[in-house]
């Protein structure tokens, strides 16, 4: 039987890098400028930096991060609401660890916990059901953050809660979906990205066809890719190839998981529990149809119904913070004047410096070069 670990063979990977650089140089010869690629997904941002692939390829490709870190794109108003929910007496907030340190207008979940809020880190939404059953006198609020990959897990969790008649659990859904956000990006006047790396696990759920519009309507080449080093080198290589040939297709490089139509069961689950709604994305603003809200059928599990909280005005971020530009691929972190000098993981001024997938945090923690070498900024 084939052993998946073959994908991590260093000799193979090193050869792949070499070939990709050869290819990149051909592209440079042809276009006289480094092509700009966007890794839409934050998990890809981490993969590029942690593996060193970003640095190895920086001579041939200018890699930008996109709006695919769900923590980063959560609006400040939403974070302030989460903080307010965490302060409600009797509430236990169950959240993925990534959200803990994200700053709202004047606090963070980490600080609220220090002040006495009951905030628990979970690995899986199912833990929230266990928590609810074991603490019948507390109200468990499950914080639903993530894209199409995570939403089905929350949907199954709520169905299980209903089946098991667990009624002290609710969900505050900040789920977002990719396609409309990408359209908003592609429609942007200043959009200047040559090709896209699409999120492999989102595509595993939605199917790669759901990204067709990128090539068909916007004529941008794109690949669906996984998160191994093998996958991300393949992705760059494939995009370079398309550029060289002047093609714009959606290529599925993650065929071991991703199909044309995706995971139909998961889609059904999501559709049973959620419906499309508008959502505010940090940096991108309000995008119609880009959020997942609980259907009225699941209204009983809606946190905002159980605890009507007042909507306060969010205080603006440090005005010089450029998370917005960053999430649209307009800049790389070092181009923010605050990066590393004032804004650090211990003193984050924007969510991109907090989240483990936030571009600023990733570059701060892993990257040696600032991406300036090779061809210049354009």
């Amino acid at each position, binding site marked *: 039987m084939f052993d998946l670990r073959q994908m*991590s063979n*260093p000799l193979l*990977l*090193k050869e792949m*890098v070499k070939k990709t650089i050869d290819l990149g140089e051909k592209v440079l010869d042809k276009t006289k400028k480094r092509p700009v690629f966007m890794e839409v997904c*934050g*998990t890809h941002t*981490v993969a590029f*930096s*942690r*593996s*060193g*692939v*970003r*640095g*190895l390829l920086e001579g041939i490709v200018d890699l930008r991060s996109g709006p695919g*870190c*769900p*923590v980063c794109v959560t609006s400040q108003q939403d974070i302030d609401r989460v903080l307010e929910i965490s302060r409600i007496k009797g509430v236990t907030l169950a959240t*993925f*660890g*990534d959200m*803990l*340190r994200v700053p709202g207008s004047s606090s963070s979940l*980490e600080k609220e916990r220090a002040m006495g809020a009951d905030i628990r*880190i979970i*690995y899986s939404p199912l833990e929230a059901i266990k928590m609810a059953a074991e603490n019948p006198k507390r109200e468990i609020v499950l914080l639903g953050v*993530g894209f199409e990959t*995570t939403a089905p897990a929350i949907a199954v969790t709520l169905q299980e809660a209903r089946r098991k008649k667990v009624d002290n659990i609710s969900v505050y859904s900040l789920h977002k979906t990719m396609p409309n956000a990408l359209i908003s990006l592609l429609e942007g006047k200043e959009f200047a990205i040559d090709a896209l790396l699409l999120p492999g696990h989102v595509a595993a759920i939605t199917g790669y066809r759901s990204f067709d519009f990128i090539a068909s309507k916007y004529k941008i080449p794109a690949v669906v890719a996984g998160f191994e*080093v093998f996958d991300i080198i393949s992705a760059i290589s494939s995009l370079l190839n398309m550029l060289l040939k002047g093609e714009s297709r959606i290529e599925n490089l993650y065929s071991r998981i991703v199909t044309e139509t995706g995971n139909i069961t998961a889609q059904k689950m999501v559709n049973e529990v959620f419906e499309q709604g508008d959502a505010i994305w940090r940096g991108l603003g309000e995008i119609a149809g880009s959020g997942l809200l609980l259907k009225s059928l699941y209204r009983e599990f809606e946190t905002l119904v159980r605890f009507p909280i007042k909507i306060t005005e969010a205080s603006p971020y440090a005005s010089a913070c450029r998370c917005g530009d960053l999430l649209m691929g307009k800049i790389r972190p070092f181009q923010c004047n605050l990066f590393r000098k004032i804004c*650090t*993981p*211990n003193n984050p001024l924007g969510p991109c410096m907090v*989240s*483990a*997938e936030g571009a600023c945090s990733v570059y*701060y*923690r*892993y*990257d*040696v070069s600032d991406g300036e070498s090779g061809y210049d900024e354009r």
Partner: protein
Amino acid sequence: MMKDDGLKGKRILLSHGDGGALTRKLIEEIFYKKFYNDILIKDQDAALLPACDRPIAMTTDSFIVKPIFFPGGDIGKLAVCGTVNDLAVSGAEAKFITTAFIIEEGFKMEDLAQIVDSMWQTARECGLTIVSGDTKVVEKGSIDGIFINTTGIGVLPAGVNLGFQQIKPGDKIIISGNIGEHGVAVMASREGFSINLSSDCAPLNRITQSILKNSQGVKFMRDPTRGGVASTLKEIAISSHNVDFCINEENLPISQEVNTVCQLLGYDPLYLANEGKILAFVAPEECEKIISLMKELPYGENTCCIGEVQEGKGDVLLKTIIGGTRKLNLLSGISLPRIC
């Protein structure tokens, strides 16, 4: 240890901490029973130790671990090893240790006896004398089981002079074995994973004394506990002058179990605690010899060189398996499990 059946079902009461008759009984029946030695049983406000004609090393740490008993050890072993190792990496021979217990009302007496026994076993293995102690009992619910502080003093042998300032470009960086095993063993037993991995919790004084005695090439040592190998290296890099540390990812000794648990929970092994490892900076010409000295001794079998010192400005650079480079930094924020 054989459990003492007479203790079965008995619990620590608040009265065991009142400084009166029950405190005395606890000290005699649980602590002195194991820790018995001429200095301790003099029962003075302070232990009297012999004069010392060499510089003295002194270190303190409080130990808190959940679960209290974990694969490969318990809080008692941890508390002795932790302090012995801080003395060991500073170059000193560990001599005397104090132990201070904070115990939750209701703590099982047999568990306490077992912890005391493993402290005693570990101290004996290290040639340490437990010279003074303290016991406080706090109300049920106001701590989670037991906390232990140990403070140790040791003697610096002649000729030993370790320090950041000794670290020079060209020096090699050695680790005494596999990375992240304490962190993963504790986490896995907390999460209920069935996994065949023990904490690396171990005393390292024999290793450090052996290499200091047999080689002049040791420049600096540290034990990469909280914050892991990455934070420890970065701390040293910050304190040293004009150097970078270059680490080879492919040389890092990390077991498959550790890698897998980290993948599942979203941790980075380089930031996980080790409780029986040394990071040593050594002169390049002595590197091979020091590695073989370490490999000969218990707890040093997997010693290897993971990188070297270069001129620089305080960075720790990791050469990845495909030849890329990334930085290692101080741990920032508790090492949360993440699904991102």
